[in-house]
């Protein structure tokens, strides 16, 4: 399956044509068709991945895991974790009390938090699928 095939499949699911997709993303006419033969550059690949909420690896056919996070989703989760740890995020739940934590503890907590946020995101994508 080429990159184009994957893009086409995702576009079909959302009932949009390749031409419409090109317009939405500000790509030149027929530029996506060239993905049948050559591998697209990273920037454009990222834009398409973000649009469909899939990972670039999924588009490239390196994984079949559709719930793997898109570049933007990964970035968002990183920012969300930072906000949660500094206690500024009231929309998503987490907070500290008790002993102050060392920097080392905070770092390992953040790693765990990132895993949990990613798993939550994947579960929610799976449910929507």
């Amino acid at each position, binding site marked *: 399956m080429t990159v184009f095939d994957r893009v086409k499949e995702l576009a079909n699911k959302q009932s949009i044509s390749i031409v419409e997709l090109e317009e939405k993303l500000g790509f030149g006419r027929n530029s996506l068709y060239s993905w049948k033969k050559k591998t697209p550059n990273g920037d454009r690949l990222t834009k398409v991945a973000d649009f469909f909420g899939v990972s670039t690896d999924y588009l490239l056919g390196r994984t079949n895991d559709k719930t793997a996070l898109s570049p933007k989703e990964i970035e968002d989760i990183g920012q*969300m974790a930072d906000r949660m740890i500094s206690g500024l995020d*009231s929309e*998503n*739940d*987490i*907070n*500290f*009390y*008790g*002993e102050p*934590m060392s920097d*080392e*503890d*905070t770092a*390992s*907590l953040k*790693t*765990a*938090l990132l*895993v*949990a*946020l990613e*798993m*939550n*995101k994947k*579960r*929610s994508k799976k449910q929507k699928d």
Partner: protein
Amino acid sequence: MFLDIKKEVNYLIESCGSTELESLVKETGAYIINDVDLPKSTLGMTVRSDGQTAILVNTSVKGPKKDFIVAHELGHNVLHHGQSATFFRRFSAGLQIPQIEAEANEFALYLLLRCSEIDTKYSFNVFDFVRSYELPDSMARFIKYEKELK
């Protein structure tokens, strides 16, 4: 706000139709992550995002105490949905525990009481009960249903 914790526990068990901890977690729509390291000072953590609830338990905790931590986090999930402060840190200064932590402890201990079949042939008091979960005696003050232990 007054919370009838006992009622909440009974309601959960009734709607789930089981006293198995894992089924009860599932019943609330949450899930457990077992294999991620947490800092030593954090025994459990609940993370809510994207409409999902993940319960993390410190990998160093094994056995009955782990059940307590899961039950405690479950308590937050049921009693304090939408409120923050969902970390369960090491039991420290007893009087400093915020209200919602106290409520989650009470929830957890009552839930575990309901889940366990206590052999009434032997004398069994609240301290024996908290000790069986490797918890400090000070936790016994969260057990408000001593009659159940008779």
